[in-house]
């Protein structure tokens, strides 16, 4: 499986934010998108996810076969928000995403155990702290299988121990032949990840 982007141009509110971004990612590899605020890291991720149209250029997923026809279908997107309902319990939230997203992978309990939240599956999401909420959102990546993980600041709000735990989860996903594209300010603890530094050559002005 191979995820590639060529000559991407991203716009926000009609203003171009970056030009000519391209990358190619093989199965089992990770891409770290770094750079200062405002260079369009989130915009790039949303374009890759298919949530925003690219002003120019293409994003392609090759070798996905029948199961993963395009990037959006093959991807988990962990955006700045956690996509959880505060009035439902952690377990209910995850069970919903497991049903809705299909391709069930880990059971809800197992996924929560992986992020250290197994004790509080019965609590409404509203009672969780910021870091716990983020970890619950990370557990969503585990309950349903997708080969590509698109992560926008995945470790924001996580303490060092949780970030290390998450690094281990990402490592396992890569070993399984998954792909990761992560926009981040913080080191994610991934070995042999390619780095795409935005805001140097790609952006004019």
């Amino acid at each position, binding site marked *: 499986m191979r995820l590639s982007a060529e000559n991407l141009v991203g716009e926000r509110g009609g203003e171009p934010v970056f030009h000519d971004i391209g990358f190619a990612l093989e199965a089992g590899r990770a891409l770290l998108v770094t750079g200062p605020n405002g260079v369009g890291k989130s915009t790039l991720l949303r374009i890759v996810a298919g949530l925003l149209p690219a002003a120019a250029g293409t994003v392609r997923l090759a070798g996905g076969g029948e199961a993963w026809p395009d990037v959006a279908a093959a991807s988990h997107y962990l955006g700045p928000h956690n996509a959880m309902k505060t009035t439902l319990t952690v377990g209910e939230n995850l069970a919903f995403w497991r049903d809705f997203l299909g391709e069930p992978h880990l059971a809800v309990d197992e996924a929560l155990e992986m992020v*250290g*939240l197994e*004790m*509080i599956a019965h*609590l*409404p999401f*509203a*009672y*969780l*702290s910021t*870091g*716990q909420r983020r970890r619950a959102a990370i557990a969503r990546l585990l309950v349903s299988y997708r080969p590509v993980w698109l992560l926008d600041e995945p470790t924001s709000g996580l303490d060092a*121990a949780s970030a290390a735990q998450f690094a281990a989860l990402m490592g396992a996903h890569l070993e399984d032949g998954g792909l990761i594209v992560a926009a981040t300010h913080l080191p994610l603890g991934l070995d042999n990840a390619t780095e795409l530094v935005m805001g140097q050559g790609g952006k004019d002005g």
Partner: protein
Amino acid sequence: MSDAAAATGRLTGLANPTRFLALVDRVVPWLGGAALLTVAVGLFLGFAAPEDYQQGITVRIMYIHVPFAWLGMLCYTVMAVSALGTLVWRHPLADVALKAAAPIGAAFTLLALVTGSIWGKPMWGTWWVWDARLTSVFVLFLMYLGIIALTRAMDDPTRAGRAAAVVALVGFVNIPIIKFSVDWWNTLHQPASVIRFDGPTIHPSLLVPLLVSAAGFTLMFFTLHLMAMRTEIWRRRVIAMRRLAARAAEGGGR
């Protein structure tokens, strides 16, 4: 210790929810028993009382209808006092009292409306007329529903309590104005054609059962109110413990 100091001491003692819960646990069975007994006696007397020469057997619904209507108003008064307690004295149980009273008041008001229209159906030939008294009670019911919706809409009990207290007080101040304007509206449109009970002319044989029944339902109201307050305190404790559990999972998970 002077009496005033003792009274203050009791009040602050009651402010402690644990002491309050213990008191409620002790009082509720007795109060509830007394309420049931009094209501039973009142209703028995009501059925033993002679029928009204005009309205026949339908008059018996009065023995529950009138207490319901009276409690609908008493409950709003209790809420207004609780609102004062929240805003002025900052008594920690006042907002619990207000929140717990609202659904009970709404239930009694609704029962008053329902029994009233059942009573009225044979007289008026329809379930509902926009008579001044009924309309005022209906507006009261709407006010209850608004306050219930408000207390349920906010997560933070303190903030919800204060908002509800303000609304309840404004509503309480407004009640005479509403009553007056509804009366005015009604006489403007139709002269009073509906048969009315005039309090003083009611015969003692009807009045005694009515008073006993009213006393019974009042006791029942206070029983229900104390139980609802207890439930609300427990509910808040459950919320607090859930927050603790979320925090404890953080400490223990590592």
